[in-house]
């Protein structure tokens, strides 16, 4: 503030702002912020007689998508799934379920009620994920709104105000007030002679005033945007005290209060009523006997005119000779499955690193968050649990399931802990946000995707440089996306620029189907 932004600097800033159209397109190309997905369902023709046998490896959503689309036009499809359940990382945990973590088997003992579940993997459906939504509609999967941000939820950081949890709205309102004043100081009418007209300048200043909730003198003196300290309904509202920015800026989490409803979580988010696995159930219901469980694949041999797959069923080796194979087995497993896939294809497969995401959940003995005016949404903490998610469903029921941790990128510390250590870690984190948390929750479930049987990793990591794929990595990606010998397709969110979203897996499946259809037609 002692050093105001010069007009020239400000115009440069504006130039950058007005140039964001270009930036967004570049980011989209890098996979950081995908465009709204077009509806990409391929138009498929019925197979020629004797040429319609397809084997799908893995009953993840990409495999199920392929199986469903091909079944509808008359292909003879078999889906081989190594585990006992479909869905892969679409997984809902509820009463009686086994969490099949290698070395740490857990059984869920929560109350057996429809709202008492937790989505251990995929948990949110943005309204822009049109293909996924279209399958929900087609398969009769009821959806409800998922609340991603609650302004009454909490932000807690040991480095900020002695670790006291603040309401999301108290953080965002004061951060915006500070930023608004900063903008206004940088951008007075005197600096706006050119190129703006007077009315344009007023518009800009009005935006700044509105952004920061500033008064007529362009000063932030507090706001009722974050509610009143008291009153406001049938008597005068008492404005809350300002929280000075110098305190708020100690936390890196404050940005979450401004961005939770932007990017991929910007569109209205949804979830299936009763758990994300209702989507998988919709597919498997439609596919019936075509999906075979506990049938681990032993070998994949591609021929010029088809693919031979060996697998185990009831302990006995079986084989399928198919015309086409669609494979959503996690790439890191394929290195351990006998195959004759081309060397460069396997090289690309082995390049992918395994994601390390973790989650945790408790049964809450009471819906204590509702007593704190929190209904849905996410609280953020500097503790390693990072996030608490309050359920969007089951409002005002006796109990609920609280998501007790979610770290998307760095879960190995948690993964290596014993179950008892993980639970203590979850409780310690939750206590930062709700002091009596330890007494309010019970029956922990921990999810370390890196150790889950038949998965051993979360979403594939292509980029090793931290900033999206390098050109070399992109070349490997395209190698793996293309069919081996025109017959074997790798699919799944692992074959996308945007891992860990169901839409990516479906689009990958659609890409493969369209490619196959083109080959079938050109051969005919």
């Amino acid at each position, binding site marked *: 503030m002692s050093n105001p932004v010069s007009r020239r600097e400000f115009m440069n800033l504006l130039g950058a702002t007005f140039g964001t159209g270009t930036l967004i397109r570049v980011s989209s190309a890098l996979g950081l912020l995908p465009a709204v997905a077009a509806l990409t369902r391929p138009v498929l023709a019925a197979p020629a007689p004797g040429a319609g046998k397809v084997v799908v490896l893995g009953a993840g959503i990409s495999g199920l998508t392929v199986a469903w689309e091909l079944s509808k036009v008359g292909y003879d499809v078999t889906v081989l799934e190594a585990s006992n359940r479909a869905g892969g990382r679409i997984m809902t945990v509820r009463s009686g379920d086994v969490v099949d973590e290698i070395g740490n088997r857990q059984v869920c003992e929560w109350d057996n009620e429809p709202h008492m579940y937790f989505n251990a993997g995929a948990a949110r459906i943005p309204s822009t994920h049109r293909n996924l939504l279209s399958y929900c509609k087609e398969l009769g999967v009821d959806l409800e709104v998922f609340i991603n941000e609650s302004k009454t939820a909490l932000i807690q950081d040991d480095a900020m105000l002695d670790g006291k949890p603040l309401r999301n709205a108290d953080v965002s309102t004061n951060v915006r007030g500070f930023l608004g004043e900063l903008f206004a100081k940088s951008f007075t009418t005197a600096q706006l002679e050119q190129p703006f007209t007077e009315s344009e300048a007023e518009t800009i200043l009005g935006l700044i005033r509105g952004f920061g909730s500033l008064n007529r003198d362009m000063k932030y003196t507090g706001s009722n945007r974050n509610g009143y300290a008291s009153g406001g309904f049938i008597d005068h509202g008492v404005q809350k005290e300002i929280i000075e920015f110098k305190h708020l800026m100690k936390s890196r989490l404050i940005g979450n209060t401004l961005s939770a409803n932007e990017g991929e979580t910007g569109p209205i988010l949804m979830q299936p009523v009763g758990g994300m696995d209702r989507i998988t159930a919709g597919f498997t219901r439609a596919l019936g006997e075509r999906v075979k469980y506990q049938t681990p694949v032993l070998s994949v041999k591609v021929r010029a005119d088809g693919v031979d797959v060996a697998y185990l069923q009831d302990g006995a080796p079986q084989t399928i000779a198919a015309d086409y194979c669609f494979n959503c087995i996690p*790439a890191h*497993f394929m290195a351990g499955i006998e195959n004759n896939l081309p060397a460069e294809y396997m090289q690309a497969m082995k390049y992918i690193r395994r994601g390390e995401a973790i989650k945790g959940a408790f049964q809450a003995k009471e819906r204590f968050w509702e007593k704190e005016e929190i209904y849905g949404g996410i609280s953020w903490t500097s503790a390693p649990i990072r996030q608490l998610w309050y359920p969007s469903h089951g409002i005002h029921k006796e109990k609920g399931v609280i998501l007790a941790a979610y770290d998307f990128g760095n879960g190995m510390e948690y993964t290596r802990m014993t179950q008892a250590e993980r639970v203590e870690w979850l409780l310690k984190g939750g206590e930062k946000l709700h002091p009596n948390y330890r007494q309010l929750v019970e029956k922990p479930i921990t999810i370390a995707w890196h150790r889950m049987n038949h998965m051993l990793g979360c979403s594939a990591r292509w980029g090793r440089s931290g900033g999206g794929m390098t050109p070399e990595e992109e070349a490997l990606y395209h190698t793996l996306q293309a069919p081996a010998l025109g017959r074997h397709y790798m699919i799944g969110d692992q074959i996308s620029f945007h891992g860990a979203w169901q839409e990516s897996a479906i689009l990958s499946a659609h890409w493969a189907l369209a490619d196959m259809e083109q080959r079938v037609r050109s051969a005919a």
Partner: protein
Amino acid sequence: MKNSAVTVSSLVLGSLLAAPALAQSEVAEYYNDRYCMTCHGADGMGSEGISAPRLAGMEPWYLKRQLENFRAGVRGTHPMDLQGREMQPMAVPLTDASIAELLEWIGGWEYKPAEITLQADAAAGAPLYAACASCHGSNAEGNEALGAPALAGQNDWYLVTQLKNFKAGYRGTHADDTYGAQMAPMAAALSDDTAILNVVSYINTLGR
């Protein structure tokens, strides 16, 4: 936590780590998958994607010792032994009986030669291997009497990792790891990563 005691059912394929003490009717029970193959690959051929070595064709006495070491925390507990730390909790629930069953199962897997993934100087590795040969055999066939496992036929990338781990003290430093303690100074004698790659390249030439 539920009782994590593991019993082993009769050796129906695919039911190695089986039902713990929990009322079967109450849960959607299905904890009977072949854990070994999830990481170690179909028929235990090893999986580079998981960094899990081959088991098929490896000596049962050596596999037994390693499973026992993992179970006891003698191996796979050093903070820097990343792969070992992935394996270690898998062995914890095993009983002596289930280890015996596992070895019988693994013994039934067909051995297939490991894919060679290294391109280093095998000729330069040959003299380095002379020290190894005294225990592991001149054809890297292993020597049970000395407790030295076969090296020939193992995944080369695994041998490299283990030599590096021994050299760096990530393996073979636990007080109860008798054989590991013998191996550690041998690995330390390999001067650098190049020497490790060369000696493993030589082992690759020994076939199997």
